[in-house]
């Protein structure tokens, strides 16, 4: 029989390890499509960690929004771009060994400073949703619209600024471009589109060219 908290701990370390390895893959893989797929794995294993912390709604939202929508879009863009891989990685390989050494030293320092034991003290804190007797989603909704109302609204403001910034940086008013004018299209009448021409049903045989309207060869 494995103790459930030990199992949780093992799961946590497994997911965390996968996340870190996948995140490394994002920046080291030669093929950009593979890098994006690796990013998907990063998100997915992060979602698994959140599930362990009993944050179900966030975990599902991460999978649905990021993995499902954003990353597919990313893949689409990456596949359409023609990136010169060697050029992108030129400086990276040169500095990779130094970077890895620095990262390892930092990891060692962090572990020494915080202490590995501190992590084991408490696997996960008490889940506020369970304490309040609500489902995770319900509790999240309550927290967002009461305690965290102001940050929630500010986040909306930041998104607005993002939209304004995107428009101001990409919109160009070019002259000489033919635009679709929706209002004119709607207002158009059948008479503007089709002209009914009445003409004789039988074409007179061998029509004579009108004098003076001969085309020059």
């Amino acid at each position, binding site marked *: 029989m494995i103790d459930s908290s030990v199992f949780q701990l093992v799961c946590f370390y497994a997911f965390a390890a996968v996340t870190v390895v996948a995140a490394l893959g994002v920046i080291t893989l030669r093929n950009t499509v593979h890098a994006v797929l690796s990013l998907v794995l990063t998100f997915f294993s992060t979602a698994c960690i959140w599930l362990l912390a009993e944050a179900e709604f966030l975990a599902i939202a991460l999978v649905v929004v990021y993995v499902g929508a954003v990353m597919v879009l990313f893949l689409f863009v990456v596949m359409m771009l023609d990136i010169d891989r060697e050029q992108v990685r030129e400086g990276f390989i040169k500095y990779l060994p130094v970077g890895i050494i620095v990262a390892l030293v930092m990891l060692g320092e*962090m572990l020494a*400073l*915080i*202490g590995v034991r*501190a992590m084991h003290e408490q696997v996960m804190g008490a889940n506020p949703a369970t304490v309040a007797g609500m489902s995770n989603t319900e509790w999240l909704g309550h927290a967002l619209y009461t305690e965290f109302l*102001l940050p929630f609204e500010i*986040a909306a403001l930041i998104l607005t600024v993002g939209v*304004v*910034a995107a428009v*101001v940086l990409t919109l160009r008013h070019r002259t000489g471009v033919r635009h679709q004018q929706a209002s004119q299209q709607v207002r158009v009448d059948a008479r503007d589109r089709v002209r009914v021409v009445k003409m004789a049903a039988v074409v007179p045989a061998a029509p004579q060219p009108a004098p003076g309207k001969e085309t020059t060869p």
Partner: protein
Amino acid sequence: MPNFNDILILLPELYLVAAACLLLLLDAFMKAEQRPLLHWLSIAVLLVGIYLVVEGQPSQAVTAFNGMFVRDGVAEILKVFALLTTVLVFIYAKPYLMDRKLFVGEFYTLTIFAVIGIMLLVSAGNLIMVYLGLELLTLSSYALVALNRDSRLSSEAAIKYFVLGALASGMLLYGMSMVYGATGTLDLAHLHVAATQTSMPHLLVFGLIFMIVGIGFKLGAAPFHMWIPDVYQGSPTAVTIFIGSAPKLAAFGMAYRLLASGLGDLAYDWQLMLACLAVLSLAIGNIVAIVQSNLKRLLAYSTISHMGYLLLGLVNAGPEGYASALFYAISYALTGAAAFGLILALARAGFECEEIDDLKGLNQRSPWAAFLMMLVMFSLAGVPPLFGFFGKLMVFQAAIHAGFLWLAIVGAVFAIIGLYYYLRVVKVMYFDKPVEGTEIRLQGDVSVRVVLSLNVRALLVLGIGWGPLFSWCQRVFVG
């Protein structure tokens, strides 16, 4: 649940959000030739904002939305000066923007959104609000830097700013998550108590280090200063003037909220870290500025050194130190606005007035402009009796009182080194021969020239009569 009182406390910010959205809509339906109206409306919006901040100021600190938002004296003084500096920015920027076909409504709305970010940041009562306020400010700034899309230099500056800014945000968030892990609270007031009782003090200090990296980046203190020269030089001067003035107040507010309100009891840990940042900033800022030939780059390195002086005040970690740092931030914001304002006013279509050599013989061609520029340079250098001198005096005093005599001596030595490059600008203006065939004089309409003169005169007046402003700075930290 939030009640009506909460909304009343948040009134200036809510008003600005509504006004910014209205300006955005107005701009969409406005013809290009009506746009000057938008300019004046934006200035009016900010002035009404100052009125609301001062008028509705409660007699003592109050919080709203479950402690998310704090309205106290510190927030008030920072907001007043942030709004005031932005008014100056709008006035100085207009002729420059019109000359370069950058006169778009989004410049105004994005800047106002950035100011809202500043106001939320300096009023933050929660780590989440610190982060969101900062993001609102920086996101608007990234877009503003890239406003001139056809300039390679601008695009490069924007990308650098964005990448380094995202990295710094990540560091800050990482630090916040560590602090949250150690204390179990995001509320700065609770954090202040919980920080002393945590069972994981190392984790807390670890988080603190990352938060200081975030603050250092925002201030532009060495060794997190790499973005400053490129962004200052690359962005349109009309944007540089904003980035170089009002956000410095926000950076001070952020440092105060995080370090003093939140982790004040860890002062012993962060004092020395800030002292290191200060020495590095003073050294890099002042020494590298000597070799600059570009005026905007020179002012960028000068900013780095000024942030070093500001940190000298924060190192004190007491009301005296915070008051001196606040005073310094205000003096820098006003002086920086005047310095870039002069560059903006001397520039015209096809001529940026970016190089120091462009100022050659300015005195013979436009004595008034040369005189104003000289006063600004003296104020930046800290020559008495100008505003900048008393700012420096106060931070030195604060550092000495906290037992950091060596730091004050280092600061004084670098102030003298810094004097050299400010005086070089003055020498070029007064003693060099003007280059033939170039014409240089103050551009812009009456409002620019009048406000610019008033701005520089304020540096002189506040330098002589610094008492009331300084006692205001002291008052907000008492009690």
